[in-house]
């Protein structure tokens, strides 16, 4: 399993915002499609670094990660594939796990 690093502020946007593609150019859906699904399909591992962006709306995080569950990826596969690194805001990893759990419950 090869390992990569996704620094959202550098590789995606300093201003991630919104849930759907129609919400703007840096939405959770776009991030999921461009970065997350590819990593999962290739059975790779990625460290996702959240520091550096100017804040994350919960709608962005929910759609990016909860959306993976709605697409059929299991919680264990997602957590195996990604390590969430957020030094500035330590609440982000737990928030993401909550969204994954809630999406699994809703399945």
């Amino acid at each position, binding site marked *: 399993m090869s390992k990569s690093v996704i620094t959202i502020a550098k590789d995606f946007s300093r*201003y991630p*915002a*919104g*849930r*759907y593609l*129609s*919400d*703007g150019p840096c*939405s959770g859906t776009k991030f999921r499609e461009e970065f997350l699904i590819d990593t999962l399909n290739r059975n790779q591992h990625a460290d996702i670094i959240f520091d550096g962006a*100017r*804040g*994350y*709306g*919960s*709608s*962005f995080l*929910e759609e990016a990660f909860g959306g993976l569950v709605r697409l059929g990826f299991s919680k264990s596969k997602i957590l195996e594939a990604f390590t969430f690194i957020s030094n*500035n*805001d*330590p*609440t982000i990893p*737990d*928030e993401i796990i*909550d969204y994954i759990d809630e999406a699994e419950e809703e399945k």
Partner: protein
Amino acid sequence: MVSEKCQFITYALVIAGWFFVDWRNNKRELRKEKRSLIDRTHVDINSIESKAVEYHQGAHNNEQLSKEIKILLDRLIKVITREKLISNNNFRKYSDFKRAITLNNFDSSSYICQPDNSELLDKIYSTKDNLVHEIEMKFSNDFR
């Protein structure tokens, strides 16, 4: 011999008294500093709440305001963690507040202006109160 013992006890009491007064003064100063920081944090939290209500009751999806809210939330969590304003790294109350503001109807092309009695606004008010309470509880436990 007896007078030497008395002298030793006197010195010991003076030193212990000095340490106690010094410790109490330090604690009082620390309490004052923390109180002032918490008061400023409450102002910041109130400001986020006001901006969030303004955003959700605006005529349209105000991208500038949403950006501002996210930046303010980001600053808030940095202060909360740096200054240990919440106990045992239990950030649930902060997350609930952030979620109430930014999970639904936020940065959304299908934005809907919320009426005064909307559930979303109620959630913002209640999670804000819970966050303030959590910070005050930590302060009260630390400086009881």
